[in-house]
């Protein structure tokens, strides 16, 4: 028999009221953990996606650089073309380790889905592209050996969608050219999963885009001055330079701005839950006024009563907080689906990444808020004078 068990049993007196208050705390803990998890997941996903592009600088034809970068991240097609000669010019820079030219072309395929859809083909260089993406592993087959082969490598999801395996033939709609699937990639969790890779010269020939590129990925040497390289590249005509670190920081700035608003909402949810806790515990103290008086008449000190009531608050917030964080774990994928639906761009992989640190922080915040809100009711209870309590009860 101790103060903790008394506090626990006191909470069971009005089960519905306790459950509703704990429910409020649970919801605020859920919102808090999910939002923190989203922030972390989004940041990790974005970093992963950008790092997995295999290059630090992207050259595209003139246009909106962020739109171009976003399209690249989403596996889409570029807007304009730039001359292939730019490859040699870029290679002359001492900071450059590797470059990989890309040509993306979209074709409307009337047989895709119910109403047809765009099939995107990414022409890549057979020599430089695989070495820039060493993390790509094959489920079947391997890369094409030269840039003129009528061959394709399918990303994991593209292979599923096209229902193709190594050795199968694919007809490119609109141009009536047949290509052979020579490789199917394992799932990478990046934009590459949905891509159909073809040799770059093959794409240029099939779609009449000889000597043209939509993008040029540049891998910079270790410890090279990227800023100096970018400054020189800015002087090239008809191309624009997209620094992936800038893209990352711009997107993260936008996400962080949104986070401030979202955390504000979480804060309001927390305050509402804490107000509920104060109300519930204070009501419970008032209902037990005489009982508290009797406990004090039996020899309990004000601090004992304070502890008992404070413990009730801590238990309430502890249960609610733990349930909320548990709920956040269980509904993480559901929340992720919802967020993906509303966001214009969401990176690949888990968007809501709740880990032990986030759980601990959210739980600590909820319990600390609960303890803070429990101070006033506990103080009121500790101040109950036994005589007054008994007299008031006697008059009722």
């Amino acid at each position, binding site marked *: 028999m101790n103060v903790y068990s008394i506090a626990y049993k006191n909470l069971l007196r009005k089960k519905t009221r306790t459950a509703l208050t704990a429910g409020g705390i649970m919801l605020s803990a859920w919102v808090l953990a999910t939002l923190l998890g989203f922030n972390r997941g989004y940041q990790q996903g974005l970093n992963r996606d950008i790092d997995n592009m295999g290059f630090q600088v992207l050259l595209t034809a003139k246009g909106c650089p962020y739109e171009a970068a976003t399209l690249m991240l989403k596996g889409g097609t570029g807007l304009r073309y730039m001359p292939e000669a730019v490859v040699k010019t870029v290679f002359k820079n001492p900071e450059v380790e590797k470059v990989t030219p890309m040509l993306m072309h979209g074709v409307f395929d009337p047989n895709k889905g119910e109403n047809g859809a765009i099939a995107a083909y990414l022409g890549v260089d057979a020599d430089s592209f695989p070495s820039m993406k060493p993390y790509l592993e094959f489920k079947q087959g391997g890369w094409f050996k030269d840039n003129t082969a009528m061959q394709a490598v399918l990303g994991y999801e593209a292979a599923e969608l096209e229902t193709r395996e190594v050795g199968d033939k694919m007809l490119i709609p609109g141009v009536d050219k047949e290509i052979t699937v020579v490789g199917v990639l394992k799932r990478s969790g990046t934009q590459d999963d949905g891509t159909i890779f073809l040799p770059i010269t093959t794409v240029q020939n099939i779609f009449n885009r000889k000597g043209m590129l939509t993008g040029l990925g540049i891998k910079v040497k270790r410890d090279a001055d990227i800023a100096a390289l970018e400054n020189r590249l800015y002087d090239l005509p008809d191309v624009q330079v997209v620094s992936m670190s800038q893209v990352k920081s711009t997107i993260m700035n936008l996400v962080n701005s949104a986070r401030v608003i979202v955390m504000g909402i979480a804060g309001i949810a927390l305050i509402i839950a804490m107000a509920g806790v104060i109300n519930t515990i204070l009501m419970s103290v008032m209902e037990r006024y005489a009982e508290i008086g009797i406990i004090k008449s*039996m020899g309990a000190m004000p601090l004992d009563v304070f502890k008992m009531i404070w413990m009730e608050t801590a238990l309430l917030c502890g249960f609610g907080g733990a349930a909320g964080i548990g709920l956040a774990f269980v509904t993480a994928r559901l929340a992720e689906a919802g967020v993906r639906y509303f966001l214009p761009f969401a990176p690949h992989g888990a968007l809501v990444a709740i880990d032990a640190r986030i759980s601990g922080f959210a739980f600590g915040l909820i319990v600390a808020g609960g303890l803070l809100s429990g101070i006033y009711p506990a103080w009121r209870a500790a101040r109950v004078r036994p005589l007054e309590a008994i007299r008031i009860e006697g008059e009722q």
Partner: protein
Amino acid sequence: MEKDLVISAKDLRKIYRRGSEEVRAVYGVSFEAYAGEMVAIIGPSGSGKTTLLNMIGCLDNPSSGTLSVGGREVFGGRKELSERELTLIRRELFGYVFQKFYLIPTLTVEENIMLPGAFYRAPGAKAAHEVMKLLGIERRYNHLPGELSGGEMQRVAIARALINGPKVVLADEPTGSLDSKRTEEIKGILRDLTRQGITVVMVTHNLDLARSADRLLEIRDGKIHGG
């Protein structure tokens, strides 16, 4: 054989102001009670009997006068005791029984009796079982108050008052909520306590119960008129 003096009150007064009016709730009360004695305080409503009981039980400070309990001067009239000092005296010397039993509904009989132990070092389960046995409620140890009769609940309240081994049990209308059969039971229990050397001071409107006491103090307008 001479009995030990347990309560000694001299010229106890409790005066407070209600607006411009001076209220003499208790005025110049002196009395003594000995170990194993049962004292009943009777009187009309508002006569000051509960105020007197509260002062004896250190739930209220007197305005003046002296009070000694168990050979210890608890009110000397020189200074008011702090809440902490009063609490420590209450722990050590008194057990309280009220008309409304004030049992905690979510705790079992045993837990209610052991409640003081949650806040300070108090006798544990063994003592609780002894007290329950003494009061004939040992079979009800695991029941909640809601599952007990009024008489049983008052027995639990008495057991809770006894768990610390008090020198004095103060009872305010201990049978006020009980029928005549249960009143007789409680009367017998209080009498048993006195046989163990515990002093019982009770306030009651029940004349039959009051007459069973060793001494009857009739209080009117804050003053003792009998005893």
